[in-house]
């Protein structure tokens, strides 16, 4: 960071009359390390695990890890949609469960699968609109408002399922999530497709820049002509819609709906999203960072479990990872005062 601290020069001619060549960028080790530390950490961890555990030398362990985490990856990516705008949408995990419960129950009642899915996606849109109404229109703090919708939706899931586990999900749902392509189930492919889509939108489109600007300074964005409230509303609707799509994947993946499972999926996606924001485009919620962060967490937990740790380890690990991520982001942010971001 040190080499990049701009110093004010008294020479007025500096930077003038040189319109043709943008300043050549000197290579910046600090920024490079900051960007790739997480990815490097993931690689090192995998190499160490491969050296220590024989299981890590089999392809099947990797596919198992990847597949098991696809739902969390999908949720984590969804979380970044609203996080980028400086808001929270805590309700995604429970929207997923409620949609799953709704779709499962509808098909049980004989509603055709296609229609049931449409109704399920409709639920996601409604949740998004309600969140947007509270947060964008009325101006309630997004953390509190979506914590409310999270809790309400969990109750709704219990109501729909009559507090029981619903099994016997139709085959087409199971196939939708578990059919394999190149030996990997479709649900993982959906997650990776979402990574690409979000990467494109975040990094390559004006919308991606607008969303960062809104997260960074809402007033400045609005006064620059960015339709702030429309984008925020849209983000909540997209977030709800994606969450309900994940709900459809979720019932197929498990072949059953357990209404109590939502809270298990509450924290992990946010841990991945926040940790992901410390990598690749540092200080910003981004798609590839989220992927790297989640896989780092997964490998770490798997290794611990191979060492004989109990299942509670994963909660400790995710919780600590979230705290580390936000701390790192805070420290990097204050240090970066005089440096640059990307």
């Amino acid at each position, binding site marked *: *960071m*040190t*080499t*990049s*601290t*701009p*110093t*004010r*020069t*008294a020479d*007025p001619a*500096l*930077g*003038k*009359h*040189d*319109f043709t060549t*943008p*300043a050549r*960028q000197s290579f910046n080790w600090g920024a490079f390390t900051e960007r790739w530390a997480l990815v490097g950490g993931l690689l090192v961890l995998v190499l160490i695990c491969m050296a220590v555990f024989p299981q890590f030398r089999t392809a099947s362990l990797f596919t198992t890890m990847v597949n098991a985490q696809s739902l969390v990856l999908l949720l984590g990516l969804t979380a970044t949609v609203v996080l980028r705008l400086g808001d929270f949408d805590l309700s995604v995990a429970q929207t997923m469960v409620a949609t799953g419960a709704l779709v499962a129950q509808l098909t049980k009642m004989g509603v055709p699968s296609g229609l049931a899915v449409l109704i399920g996606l409709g639920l996601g849109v409604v949740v998004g609109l309600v969140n947007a109404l509270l947060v964008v229109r009325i101006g309630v703090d997004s953390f509190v408002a979506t914590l409310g919708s999270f809790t309400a939706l969990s109750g709704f899931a219990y109501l729909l399922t009559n507090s029981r586990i619903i099994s016997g999900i139709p085959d087409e749902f199971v196939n939708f999530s578990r059919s394999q392509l190149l030996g990997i189930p479709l649900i993982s492919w959906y997650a990776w497709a979402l990574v690409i889509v979000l990467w*494109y939108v975040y*990094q*390559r*489109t*004006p919308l991606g*820049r*607008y969303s*960062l*600007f809104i997260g*960074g*300074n809402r*007033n*400045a*964005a*609005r*006064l*620059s*002509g*960015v*339709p702030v409230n429309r984008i925020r509303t849209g983000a909540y609707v997209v977030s709800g819609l994606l969450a309900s799509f994940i709900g459809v994947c979720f019932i197929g993946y498990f072949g059953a709906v357990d209404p109590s499972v939502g809270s298990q999926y509450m924290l992990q996606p946010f841990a991945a999203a926040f940790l992901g924001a410390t990598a690749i485009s540092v*200080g910003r919620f981004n798609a590839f960072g989220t992927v790297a962060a989640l896989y780092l967490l997964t490998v770490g937990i798997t290794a611990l479990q191979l060492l004989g740790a109990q299942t509670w380890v994963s909660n400790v690990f995710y919780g600590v990872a979230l705290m580390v991520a936000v701390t790192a982001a805070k420290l990097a*942010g204050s240090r*970066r*005062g*005089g*440096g*640059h*971001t*990307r």
Partner: protein
Amino acid sequence: MTSSGTDARIALSVRNLSKHYGGAIALADVSLTVRAGEVHALLGQNGCGKSTLIKSLTGVVIPDAGEVEVFGEALHMPTSDPHTRGIAVIHQDIGLVDSMTVLENLGINAHYGARLLSPVNVKKERAIYTDLMHRLGVEFDLDAEVSSLSPAERALLAVARAMRLMDGDSTEQLFILDEPTAALSKPEAARLLDLMRRVADLGAGVVFVSHRLSEVMEVCDRATVMRAGRDIVEVKVSETSRAELVAHMLGRRMDDFFPTPPAFDGGAARLVVDRLSGERVSQVSFRAHAGEVVGVTGLAGMGQEELPFLLFGEHKPTEGHVEIDGSPAGFASPGAAIRAGVALVPGNRLRDGVWIAGTAEENVTLPVIRRFSSWFGIRSQAVRQRAFELMAQVDVSPNRPDYAMAGFSGGNQQKVVFAKWLQLHPGVLLLDEPTQGVDPGAAKALLNDAMDAAAAGSAVVVFSGEHELLAAICHRVIVLHHGQVIAELHRDGLTEHALLEACEAGPSEISIAA
């Protein structure tokens, strides 16, 4: 309460203070001496090291080397509790909580005179502050909510709050006021300066940081000028001139502080405002023509802060209408205003103008980023090129589009904001306090850009409380009082003095507690 015998005492002595950030030098062997009983101006361009120096005294920044003495006693670095040593810093961002009362805000830094869980003796608190206010010659309703106070009252409140800690018995006090008047109009600033002078006369040392040199000339005894992390000179204010101070600050002479407006002999009306009313604005009518520079002023809180937001579609007018280039312009949002060719450089840069953690490129290209979008996404090379050219045009230094905005000094940040809007070639350019917190060199460059825009056919409207600036650059100035236009001054009769008189001509019930 006399200052007898304190003449020779040294309130603050800074010797050879240095601070490096990696390879960049923030402070290089800086020395500063402030005597008790004097108001000492600390001057320099944005980024010259003033802030680093002040932050060193309050323990925010840990200097690499150097010594500091406060009233003869060494101050160990980093200081943990500067106010126990009699140091109080009052920032432009004053740190009051809007939704709390004056009394609640005053007590916070003195722990409300009680231990954490013991009851607050409200009566005693009241008595203390009433006495303090009396000594300072100001008066506040202690139960009023701070949100109801004017900017000047807030600044006075911050001074009073700091006074509490420096208890009355001791004269060993050092006040550092960091651009306290930046947001104030002239008469209000005058009240604060008056207070500052009084505090110094009671025997305290006062360090005054300001870009408003007229205030420095008026109230300060001595001045230390810094440039590029060094103290360049210490002078007696009575023995120097503004031009000389500026020459020290810039390292070169600058003959005029403000540009002159381009020649204007009537153009098409670009902005027509007809009986516009809204928050704090009532029945305002005026026109601005192509090539014309129109100023809007008034005391703080008289409506000139709200008017630009009304015109720009950010706030909704309650009645009246606006026309841009002959077509009605009741904008539903700032986006609509921008599409109609209006641009607003907001007065509060950090709140409304920039995304401070974003890069200069992201900030400067925000309004036009759509134009760089193709099927494969944003053409990043072209965007970088554009950002570089725009920043070169307004002479941002260093011209590094990839740096975060936070890495630039205030003047350079404001240049980026100007570049962002000037690239749209706005038909109507609204400038709200365009040079607030910007050093004279950068201020002149920015105003030159605005004059060029006018010369190219824009109608430029400048909202400001700085009468000297308005008198220099405007063809015409309208004066608001309680949201209404009470005067309009034309170029031939336009002087700083005339503007001041026009502002104060309104009924005097508005003047804050005398």
